[in-house]
C-alpha cells in the first residue's frame, strides 16, 4: 500500500528585542556569562510582576505581516504551568487562548502555499546543562520573547518541510525580528508527522519530533519518520502518539520516555498583564514598516537575476537590501560578486554586516564595464572595499592605489608594444608567430603586460600585436 504523509510544523523564533519580554534586562546574551542577563522578574523573586515589552508587540506585528497573517486587535496572555528548573516562575507566560497573530500563509519558492494556523507570543525558558550527578542552570534565556508559529498540516514531503522552515527563517530575518542564528537556537522546529493510506480522508496517528535546529535535520527527521511509520503500518502494527527526539549523529528519532504522557498544563489567564488592545492605526503603522520580503524581491528581480543565484542571495537580507539600491544595469555584475566572491570569503559573515555603500559598488561595476578593471582586478578591488584601511576612499582611488587600472589608451599601448618588439629576446617569438605558430601570441602579450606592470588591457594588447605582426 502507498502511504501519504501529512506534516505540521511548530516553529519557535527568538525575537531580537533589546530587552526581554517581561522585564527591562538585556535580551542579548551572546558571549555573556551564564546568569548575567537576569532580572528579579526572570529569577521569579517573590512579589515580582511581569512588565510587557511594547517592542515585542511591534516585532510580532511585523512577523505576522511577513507571513500574510491577520493581526488580532485584541489578545492576551495565559500561564502554562509545569515544574522544571528552567522555569523559575513554575509557569510559562504564553498566549494559549487569544494569540496576537491570526491565520495567514507562507509561500514556498516552488509556489506551494502553507497555511499558518496562528502564531503567539511567549517567554522562553532557561537552559540546563546536565553532568553526571548534577545539572547547571542558566537563566539568561528566561523571558526572551518568542513567537511560536503553528502551521496547518499542509506539508506532504520532507522537501517541503525543509523549504517551509527555510522560508520561515528567511521571512523572519527579512522582517528583522530575529538574529536567525540556528546554531544558537534562535529558531527551533517541532515537526508533527503522520502517514495515512493514499486516498484516505483520515489522518494517521502522529509522532512529534521536537527541538530540531537545522533545515537539514528537519528534512532528515521527516524522511526517517515516514520510513519508520510506513514499516510499522506495513507490519500491521500501530503508530504510537508520542514525542520523539532526533539525533543528527545516528540519523534516527527515538521515543522520549515520559512518565506523564498527557501533561496537564493547567492553563489560566495571566492576571498580572492586562489584555492587549491595539488600534487598527497602530497595527497599520507597524505593518508599514515591514521591509521588502523575499516574494517582493522575486518579483522585482525576475528575469534580471537567474533564479538559482537569486535563491542563494535570498538567504541574505543584507545583500538583497543592497542590491535593491543598485542601478539595474549593474545588477548582474554586483550579484555575481556577492555570490562568487563575498559569500566564498571566510570572513563573509563579518562582511555582511558592513557592506560598502551603493556608490562604491556602482563605481566598481562601471569601471569593470568600461574595461578599466579586468575581471580579476574587479574582484580584488571589491574585496578591498571591505578593508578597514580603505574605508574613507572611493573605488577609483583604491583601484589606482593598487595599480589595477587597465591601460586602454591605444597610443600609449602602441608605444609599449613597440618597445617590447624592439627587444632582442622577443625576436624568435615574432618570427615563430609570423610562421603560423599561433600560441606564441600569449608569450608576447605577457611580455607587454609585464612591461606595463599589469595595467594594460590584455585584449587590446593582443589586437595591436596582431596588427603589427601581419
Amino acid at each position, binding site marked *: 500500500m502507498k502511504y501519504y504523509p501529512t506534516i505540521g510544523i511548530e516553529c519557535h523564533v527568538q525575537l531580537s528585542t533589546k530587552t526581554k519580554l517581561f522585564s527591562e534586562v538585556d535580551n542579548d546574551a551572546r558571549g555573556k556569562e551564564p546568569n548575567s542577563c537576569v532580572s528579579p522578574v526572570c529569577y*521569579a*523573586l*517573590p*512579589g515580582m*510582576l511581569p512588565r510587557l515589552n511594547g517592542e515585542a508587540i511591534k516585532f510580532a506585528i511585523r512577523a505576522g505581516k511577513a507571513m500574510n497573517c491577520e493581526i488580532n486587535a485584541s489578545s492576551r496572555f495565559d*500561564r502554562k504551568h509545569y*515544574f522544571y528548573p528552567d522555569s523559575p516562575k*513554575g509557569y510559562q507566560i504564553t498566549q494559549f487562548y487569544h494569540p496576537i497573530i491570526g491565520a495567514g500563509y507562507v509561500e514556498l519558492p516552488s509556489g506551494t502555499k502553507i497555511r499558518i494556523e496562528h502564531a503567539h507570543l511567549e517567554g522562553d525558558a532557561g537552559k540546563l546543562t546536565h553532568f553526571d550527578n548534577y545539572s547547571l542552570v542558566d537563566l539568561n534565556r528566561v523571558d526572551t520573547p518568542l513567537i511560536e508559529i503553528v502551521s496547518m498540516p499542509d506539508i506532504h514531503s520532507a522537501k517541503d518541510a525543509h523549504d517551509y522552515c527555510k522560508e520561515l527563517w528567511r521571512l523572519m530575518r527579512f522582517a528583522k525580528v530575529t538574529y536567525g542564528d540556528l546554531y544558537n537556537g534562535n529558531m527551533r522546529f517541532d515537526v508533527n508527522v503522520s502517514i495515512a493510506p493514499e486516498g484516505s480522508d483520515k489522518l494517521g496517528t502522529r509522532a512529534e519530533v521536537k527541538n530540531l535546529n537545522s533545515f537539514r535535520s528537519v528534512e532528515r527527521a521527516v524522511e526517517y519518520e515516514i520510513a519508520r511509520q510506513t514499516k510499522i503500518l506495513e507490519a500491521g502494527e500501530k503508530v504510537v502518539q508520542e514525542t520523539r527526539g532526533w539525533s543528527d549523529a545516528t540519523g534516527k528519532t527515538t521515543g522520549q520516555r515520559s512518565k506523564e504522557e498527557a501533561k496537564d498544563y493547567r*492553563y489560566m*489567564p495571566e492576571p498580572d498583564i492586562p489584555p492587549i488592545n491595539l488600534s487598527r492605526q497602530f497595527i497599520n503603522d507597524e505593518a508599514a514598516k515591514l521591509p521588502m520580503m523575499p516574494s517582493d524581491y522575486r518579483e522585482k528581480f525576475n528575469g534580471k537575476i537567474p533564479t538559482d543565484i537569486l535563491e542563494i542571495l535570498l538567504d541574505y537580507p543584507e545583500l538583497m537590501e543592497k542590491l535593491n539600491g543598485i542601478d539595474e544595469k549593474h545588477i548582474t555584475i554586483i550579484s555575481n560578486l556577492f555570490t562568487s566572491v563575498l559569500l566564498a570569503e571566510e570572513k563573509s559573515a563579518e562582511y555582511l554586516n558592513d557592506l560598502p555603500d551603493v556608490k562604491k559598488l556602482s563605481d566598481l561595476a562601471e569601471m569593470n564595464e568600461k574595461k578599466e578593471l579586468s575581471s580579476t582586478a574587479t574582484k580584488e578591488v571589491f574585496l578591498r572595499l571591505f578593508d578597514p584601511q580603505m574605508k574613507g576612499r572611493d573605488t577609483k582611488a583604491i583601484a589606482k592605489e593598487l595599480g589595477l587600472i587597465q591601460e586602454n589608451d591605444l597610443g600609449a599601448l602602441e608605444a609599449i608594444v613597440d618597445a617590447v618588439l624592439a627587444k632582442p629576446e622577443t625576436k624568435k617569438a615574432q618570427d615563430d608567430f609570423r610562421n603560423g605558430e599561433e600560441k606564441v601570441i600569449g608569450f608576447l602579450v605577457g611580455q607587454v603586460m609585464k612591461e606595463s606592470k599589469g595595467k594594460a588591457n590584455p585584449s587590446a594588447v593582443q589586437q595591436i600585436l596582431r596588427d603589427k605582426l601581419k
Partner: protein
Amino acid sequence: MKTANKTITATELVKEALEKAKKYEEYNIFTFLNEEGALKKAKEIDERIARGEKVGKLAGVPFAIKDNYLSPEGETTASAHILEGFTSPITATSVEKLEAEGAILIGRTNLDAFAHGSSTENSYFGPTLNAYDKERVAGGSSGGSAVAVALDIVEFATGSDTGGSIRQPASFNGVYGLKPTYGAVSRYGVVAMASSTDCMGFFTKTPEDMDLLMSIAAGQDPKDMTTLPDFYEKSEVKKPKKIGVVKDFDNDSVNAEIRAALKTKTEELKKKGYEIVELDMPTLKYALAAYYIIVPAEVTSNLSRYDGVRYGFRSDNSKDLEALYENTRSEGFMPENKRRIMIGNFVLSSGFYDAYFLKAAKARTLIVKEYEEAFKKCDFILTPVSPNYAFKLGEKVNDPIAMYLEDLMSVSLNLAGVPGLSVPVGKAKNGLPLGLQLVGPRRSDKALIEFSKELK
C-alpha cells in the same frame, strides 16, 4: 498622626514604638523588629530637622509592614516556612513611597502563611492574639498589622487584602482598615496571593491618617501593569446622599450585636438627612463560591515559584529533582496552603476548567455588574464586615468551611475590584470591637474615607 519636629524627635518616637513592641511581645505581633535600622533612620531624620532641612509628611512616624511586603530589613517570610532565610534585595513600591516621606519601618508583622486565612492562626510563627482579648484571634490574614495599630505600637501598618484580610482584622481590633480600589496601590514587591484580587492597603487609627497614607502610596506604578492611572488626589469628594444596605446580609447567620450596630448607624444617618436605600443583591451569595475557585487557582499558580531551587527553604536529603520539589513543598507549606494549592490545581485541570474556573469567572462578571447596578441606586453601601466579632483561638482551625464563611461579606468587593473601608463603630457587650464595612464604586476611595467620619 504624631510626626517628628523640633519638640519630639524621631528617635523618641521610634524608641517608644520599640519599647511598646517589646512590652506586647506575648501578642506575637512581629516576625522581625528593625531596632538598629529604625534608630539609625530616626537619627538621620533628627539631624535633618536640626539642620532645618525639609522632611517628608511622615517624618519619623514609626510604622510596620505585613511580612509579605518585600524590603531588605530582616527576612521576608510571609510567615511561611518555605521562605525561611529569604532576604529581599528589593523594596515594595508602596514601602518605598512611605519611606521617602520619612516614615520609619520598625518591624514586620505576622500573618497567615502567604495570607491564607482569616485568623493569623495559619502562621508558621504561631497566632497573633487579639488586642482586646488574648484568648481570641486577631483576625486575618493581616492580624499582626491590625494588632500593632490597635495596641498603639505604631501609627499605621500596611496590609494586603485578597478577600477581607485587612477589613476583618481591622474590625476585630477596633481600627480603620482600607482595601482600596483594585489597582490603586502598586502590588510590586508584595508576595502575591491572588493577583486579580490582591489589594494593598492600611490600618490606621483615624480616617485622616488613612487619607494621608493613600495620598502618598496610591498611584500608577510602571512596575505593576495593573495599577490604575493616578486618581486618588484628583477624585472629586462629593457628599453622598443615598446609603444602601444589603437585604441579603440581614439574617440570622450574622451576629445580633453586629446587626444592631448596623441598624443604629443607619438610623443615625437617617437623622442626619441621608436616605437609606434597601438593595437586592442576589448574586452576592455566589461570591464566596466563585472566590474559592478563582483565588485558589491564582494561589496555586503564584506559589509555583517556591520550589527550593533558588531561595528560601530547601528540604535536605532529596535524591533527585522530583524529590527536591516534593519534600521542599511538603515540608515548607502549611496545611491551608496545601489545601488551596490542591483546590486550585483541581479547578484548572483540563476537563474541569470550564466547569469550575470559567463558570466562576462568569459569576465574577455578574457580581461586577451587580455592584454597578447597586451604585446607580445609592452612593455607598454599608454592611457588616464579617458575620461575627473576634472568635476564640482554635475555634475554627479544624473547620475550613466555617473559616471561609468569615469572608462571606468581604470577598465580593475583591471580585468586583471596588473599595471597602472597615470602620470601628463601638463595642459588643463583652467589650470586643465591632466594625462595619463601607463600600463604594471603583475610584471612590477618597470620598469613602471622608464619609466614614459620619459614622464616628
